[in-house]
């Protein structure tokens, strides 16, 4: 089998021979039809036979090479079966013309030539990249082919659905590095499943779980003057491409992991953002979560009830709501209007609004609340229990309220809490210890002093 696999590598060399012979056969075929009595007509069946034999050998080599894998499936399918069809057509043409006294209709030979061109083009797509023919073509050709200059890097939308190998690494190997590197990548694909990713090549492990041990990486960063340098022709990999390759190899060269499922260092984040517009920066809950937009009429209604309401950002439907402290209105009477947008409220500021305990049951329904300010209000321990469903609450401001250590057990339900403000309350060391035991990492912020004595009111 090894020798057959090795034979497959000669496909690129062998494939040109039948192309030349069969095109020559088709040309002679046409001349023979157009010029009856032409002496050269006798060579037509011989050329078809030679072409058929050469095409058979090339097709066999190609079949073996395709078995190694690593090619785009749709292209290899058509390249393979169209190639075999052409082998059969060349045989048919030989049979049709083997009687040397007559020459068959030449139209099938035209089909053979067109087929040869198309099969050759498909092969070129796989070895030189899809835009090989057009990237350096004149503008009018690019326009005809709908080729966009800016399409060098694929724009990727979502780290969750972006596969590291398929969408980022494979295009680097296929588009930028040239055929030699692709051969290395193909080897990895072939042996990746059954034998792991440490297939030993002639000069070491082609793919290793880390970049420094990988022959692939060594070759793309070695001295370009070296014979082993990859790619052997053309421009080498860019800094960004090398860093992405290194990141992929250091991560164990995964073939089926998404970008979101692995760690990305800041340098890699920057490269992914610049090349692919792919934002891999860790996102806050507000940025990750999607909610329905609030209708403008609802917004206006809420404003009429004494609240300021704003969308948190242009492309984010969460809202930031603040009580406007209007003398003629009471927050406790008006807060019910917020139930309509309970899912959309991410930030709520009801500081110094004379908020009463009874109003907190409305706040407790705002399941996406992240920042809640209720400072300087007559709130007591009794109402804190209403907040226990706010799993995403990160910042809770209760300074200058009437809470005590007693509410620590209710606050302990807020597992997402990162900051609690308790200055000028009776929430003391006991409550803080209890809370920190239940919610590790929460920062409890009391009062500060510089050179002044602690506040005493």
């Amino acid at each position, binding site marked *: 089998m090894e020798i057959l696999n090795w034979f497959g590598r000669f496909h690129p060399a062998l494939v040109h021979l039948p192309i030349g012979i069969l095109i020559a056969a088709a040309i002679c075929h046409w001349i023979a039809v157009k010029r009856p009595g032409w002496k050269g007509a006798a060579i037509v069946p011989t050329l078809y036979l030679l072409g058929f034999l050469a095409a058979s050998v090339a097709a066999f080599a190609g079949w073996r090479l395709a078995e190694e894998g690593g090619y785009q499936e749709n292209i290899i399918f058509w390249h393979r079966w169209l190639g075999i069809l052409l082998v059969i057509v060349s045989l048919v043409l030989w049979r049709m013309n083997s009687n040397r006294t007559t020459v068959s209709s030449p139209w099938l030979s035209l089909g053979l030539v067109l087929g040869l061109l198309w099969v050759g083009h498909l092969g070129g797509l796989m070895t030189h990249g899809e835009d090989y023919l057009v990237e350096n073509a004149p503008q009018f050709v690019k326009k005809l082919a709908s080729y966009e200059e800016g399409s060098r890097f694929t724009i990727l939308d979502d780290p969750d659905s972006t596969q590291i190998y398929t969408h980022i690494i494979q295009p680097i190997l296929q588009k930028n590095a040239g055929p030699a590197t692709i051969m290395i990548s193909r080897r990895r694909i072939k042996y990746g499943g059954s034998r792991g990713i440490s297939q030993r090549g002639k000069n070491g492990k082609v793919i290793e779980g880390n970049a420094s041990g990988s022959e692939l990486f060594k070759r793309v960063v070695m001295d370009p003057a070296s014979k082993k340098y990859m790619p052997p022709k053309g421009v080498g990999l860019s800094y960004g491409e090398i860093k992405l390759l290194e990141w992929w190899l250091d991560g164990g060269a995964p073939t089926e992991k998404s970008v979101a499922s692995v760690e990305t260092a800041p340098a890699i984040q920057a490269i992914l953002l610049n090349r692919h517009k792919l934002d891999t920066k860790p996102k*806050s809950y507000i940025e990750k979560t999607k909610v329905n937009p609030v209708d403008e009429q609802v917004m206006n209604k809420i404003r009429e009830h004494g609240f300021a309401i704003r969308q948190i*950002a242009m492309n984010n439907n969460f809202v930031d709501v603040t009580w406007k402290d209007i003398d003629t209105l009471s927050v406790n009477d008006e807060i019910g209007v917020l139930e309509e947008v309970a899912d959309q409220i991410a930030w709520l500021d009801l500081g110094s609004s004379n908020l009463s305990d009874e109003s907190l049951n409305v706040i407790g329904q705002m399941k996406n609340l992240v920042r809640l300010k209720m400072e300087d209000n007559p709130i007591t321990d009794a109402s804190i229990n209403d907040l226990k469903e706010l799993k995403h609450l990160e910042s809770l401001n209760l300074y200058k309220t009437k809470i005590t250590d007693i509410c620590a057990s209710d606050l302990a339900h807020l597992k997402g809490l990162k900051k609690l403000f308790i200055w000028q309350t009776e929430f003391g060391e006991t409550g803080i210890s209890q809370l920190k035991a239940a919610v590790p990492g929460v920062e409890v*912020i009391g009062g500060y*002093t*510089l050179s*002044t004595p602690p506040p*005493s*009111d």
Partner: protein
Amino acid sequence: MSLDQEYRYRQTQLETRRHFLRHCTTGLGALALAGLGCSSPSTDQVIKTLTGHEDRMRHYFGRAKRVIYLHMAGSPSQLELFDYKPTLNQLHDQACPQSLLEGKKFAFISGVPKMLGHQANFKQHGQSGAWISNHLPHFCQVADDVCFLKAMHTDEFNHAPAQLFLYTGSPRLGRPSLGSWVTYGLGTENEDLPGFVVLVSGGKTPDAGKSVWGSGFLPSIYQGVQCRSQGDPVLYINNPEGMDRQLRGQTIKAINEINQKEYDEFGDDETLTRISQYEMAYRMQLSVPEVMDIGKEPQYIHEMYGTEPGKASFANNCLLARRMAEKGVRFIQLFHWGWDSHGAGKSEALNHGFLDRCKEVDQPMSALIQDLKQRGLLDETLVVWGGEFGRTPMMENRGGVTNPFAGRDHHTDAFTIWMAGGGIKGGVTHGETDEIGYYGIKDQVHIHDLQATMLHTLGIHHEKLIYPFQGRDFRLTDVAGKIVKEILV
């Protein structure tokens, strides 16, 4: 946008507003005055019309809602406060190497100056180990709350152009200031107070004058309103003798009716701004004295800040800044003058006047950070401290003669600012200067980068906050600006 397009754009804007004015049942003047004293829906509509960009510029999720900018006018020496360089002490009094002077332009240094070692003692503070000098004994206590940018650099080496560059993105007059851009982009949170307030201390306004809080080519509704911590908080805000509030209201109503007719005839945006400002001034007669009265603060707060009600001081202004932040003022700009420590006189000597300035700001700015933090305001308030440029590691030798006191010349290539709160990491030092603090050698941050980063914390994309003027789109960061992502939360 071409001139023609801009003309059409403005015409469309005018038509839209004229249409609104002509078809509303009561007219703009009535709308404006109907809401005086309280914020009715119709008043909101007028304000919304005037601040039409409000909230449309919040391009992405920004953690900061407002900014307090503490500007040390004259530029404090980073080498006496934050940028500790032991090598500089070793080189003290030695002649400056020629390599540092070749091709350089200084404001006053000429010939070969001598190197000047630190005129301070440094220690590391907080868990972050930030280097802070003994001149800021209070500030050491908040070292872990602030982020130092130690390799700041600017393009301008004289005060006025450098201040203009910092606040408007251009060293020449005529561009809108940072606070104006922010209020243009995000509007105000409190309709009874200006969105952009300026407080000045130290006895003088900055060298660049009021242009550093001007609105440039933006509608003048976005310009900063200067408030005072001594005397009337805003000049002429009180009614003149013999005029009561009712008479003032009737006067403004009459003026606005005339303005409305002017607007109908000529369609100038500035007329709308004027109507709005009359209305705002009327509301401010009640709201500003209330917010500016620091006498209501408890004694421990006065002790914390070192404030003395009734005096014009940086400490009072810091406390006012916190009060305004609580009330939802979008951009609070403080200027404290007197940091130009050349050493030509005692008041500008690093070991005399400079120490006085340090004492004036150390406690209040530290108290401001802690006070904002304990009230839960620091997370949503971006605090920035700094000058317009830095100071040289060399002693100034004005006219080739050594100055009588220790002082340093203006320096554009390296200086330190700090930022805190509002989406900025605390306890971080970003950037590094060389062994004598002359050049930034790592993570340099340009003025445009600072502007872009500040806007980013507010949720504004600095490349999208634009205003068409004279045939092209203008922006604060001109054609530059890179967000310093490393310091963002």
